[in-house]
C-alpha cells in the first residue's frame, strides 16, 4: 500500500504523533542519561514495568497506567536505596529489575491463554497506540519537557558536579529524584511502540550520535532530537512498508544512523 494511503489511517497518525513526541522526550532525557552514565537505568525500568503490565492484565484493567505507576515506584525505590545501601546504582537497578521482571513472569503464569497485549509490550507494536495512550503520552511528555526546560541549568550543572551544584544552592536530591521519575515515565510511555526489550535504545542511540557530531551542548541537544525524530519516522515507515515489528525497525534504523555518523566523523576528523 502506498505510504500516503497508509497515513490516512487514524492508528498510523496516532503512532506517528506519539513517536514524534517520544523522540523529542527521550532524546532530551537521553542527553542526561549519557552525561550521568546511567544507560542501564532505562533498560532496567523498562524490564521492571513487566510486573506492572502483568498486574494490570491479571486485574483486567488498562496496562499503561498501572505500568506507569509501577515504574514510578521502582524509580523512587532505586533513589531511596541509593541513599541507604552501600551498593552501586547499577547493582541496585539489576536487583530490582530482575526481581520485578520475575514477579511479572510469575503473575503471567496465572493469566490463562495467549496475551496479545503482553506480546506487544515485549516487542512493540504500532497497532497498540490508542487515543487514550496518545493523550497520556502528550500530557506526561509536556510536563517532563516543561520541567527539563525550567531546570536545564541546574540539571546540567549537577550532572557535571553534584558538590558544586549543592554549594550553589541547587537541590541535588530533588532534581535527581525528578530525573529518575521522568526517565521511568518516559521509558514506559515508549514501551508500547518499541517494546520492553528495545526501548532503552532510543534513550542511548540518538544522544550517542548527537555526541559524535556536536561541538557544543546546544548542538548536542539539537542533533540528538533531530536524529531521534528521523530514527522514529524512518523506522516506522520501514515497519509499515515491510510489515516488520516497529521496535526492531526503529532500533535498526538508529543503529544504521550511528554507523553512518561514525564513518562521517572519521572522514572529517
Amino acid at each position, binding site marked *: 500500500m502506498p505510504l500516503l494511503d497508509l497515513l490516512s489511517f487514524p492508528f498510523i497518525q496516532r503512532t506517528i504523533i506519539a513517536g514524534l513526541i517520544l523522540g523529542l522526550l527521550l532524546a532530551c532525557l537521553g542527553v542526561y542519561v549519557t*552525561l550521568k*552514565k546511567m544507560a542501564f537505568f532505562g533498560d532496567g525500568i523498562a524490564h521492571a514495568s513487566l510486573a506492572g503490565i502483568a498486574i494490570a492484565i491479571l486485574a483486567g484493567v488498562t496496562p499503561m497506567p498501572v505500568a506507569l505507576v509501577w515504574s514510578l515506584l521502582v524509580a523512587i525505590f532505586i533513589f531511596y536505596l541509593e541513599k541507604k545501601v552501600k551498593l552501586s546504582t547499577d547493582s541496585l537497578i539489576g536487583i530490582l529489575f530482575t526481581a520485578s521482571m520475575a514477579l511479572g513472569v510469575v503473575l503471567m503464569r496465572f493469566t490463562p491463554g495467549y496475551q496479545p497485549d503482553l506480546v506487544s509490550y515485549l516487542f512493540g507494536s504500532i497497532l497498540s497506540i490508542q487515543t487514550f495512550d496518545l493523550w497520556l503520552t502528550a500530557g506526561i511528555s509536556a510536563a517532563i519537557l516543561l520541567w527539563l526546560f525550567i531546570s536545564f*541549568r541546574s540539571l*546540567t*550543572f549537577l550532572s*557535571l*558536579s553534584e*558538590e*558544586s551544584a*549543592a*554549594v*550553589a*544552592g541547587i537541590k541535588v536530591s530533588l532534581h535527581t529524584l525528578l530525573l529518575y521519575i521522568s526517565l521511568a515515565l518516559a521509558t514506559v510511555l515508549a514501551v508500547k511502540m518499541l517494546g520492553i526489550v528495545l526501548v532503552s535504545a532510543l534513550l542511548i542511540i540518538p544522544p550517542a550520535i548527537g*555526541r559524535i557530531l*556536536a*561541538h*557544543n*551542548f*546546544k*548542538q*548536542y541537544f539539537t542533533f540528538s532530537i533531530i536524529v531521534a525524530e528521523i530514527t522514529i519516522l524512518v523506522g516506522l515507515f520501514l515497519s509499515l512498508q515491510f510489515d516488520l515489528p516497529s521496535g526492531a525497525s526503529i532500533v535498526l534504523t538508529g543503529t544504521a544512523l550511528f554507523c553512518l555518523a561514525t564513518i562521517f566523523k572519521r572522514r572529517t576528523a
Partner: protein
Amino acid sequence: MSPRSKTTNENSSAIFAENVSILYGEHRVVEDVSFAIEQGEIAAILGPNGSGKTTLMKAILGLIPYRGEITILGQHFHDVRNRVGYVPQRFTFDRDFPITVEEFLRLAKREQCSNSRVTTVIKEVGLTPLVLSKRLGNLSGGQLQRVLIAQAILNDPAVLFLDEPATGIDVVGETAVHDVIEHLNKEHGTTILMVSHDINMISTLVDKVLCLNKKLLCAGSPKKALTQKSLSELFGVHHSLYEHHQHHE
C-alpha cells in the same frame, strides 16, 4: 547545633569553627577542631592523605553533617551561600562531552552570567576570551582548573574554597593557579581557604595554616606553625621539603 549568643570572633571572622567533630558511622574523621580565618586572609588546611582535610571543608560548606559550630561571615553557610565560591577536588567529567567553556560558565544563575561578567571572570583567572569557545574537555589541566575557579567567582564571592587547587597539573599550570589565588585575594580582598598538601606553596602563599590529622595539630602563620616538630607530628616522618624551601629563602 544549639542556638547560642555569637562571640566576637564568630561575628567578625570569615570562617569560624568551634569544637567541630565529624563522624562517618562510628568512625571519627575530624575531632574537636576549633579555628578562625579572618576576612582577607589566605588560609590552607594541610595534612596527609586521609587526615580529614576535604571532609572538614565539606562540613564547612554544609555538604556533610557535623557536631559543633561553624559560621561563615558570622552566619550559617545556607544563609551566605551567595557570597561563597567553591572548586571541588575532583571534577571528573567525560572529556569527550560536548560542552564549551562559555556554556559551562552559563550554567550558573542567570543573573550571575551576563556576557560582560563571563568575559570579566575569564580575564580575572588569566585566560583570554578566546577560550570561551573551546570545549571544556580540550583544556589543559591548568586551564581547566582556572575555568573552574572562574565558575566559582561568577558571584564575586567574599569567601572562596579551593580543594587541592593545583593537584594533577603541571608546574606552569600550578604557577598560574597560584597567581590567580593571589590576584583574587589582593585585588578583590577575597578570603580564601584551600586544602593542600603542598608545603612549599603553603609557606609562600598563605597567611595561615591549619595542620590537620584528625585533630588540629598546629595553626598560625606558616613560619611559626610549620616547624620540624609539627611536620613530623603531622606526617609522621622527617619532612625535608620544608627545610629545603627554608634554605632558599
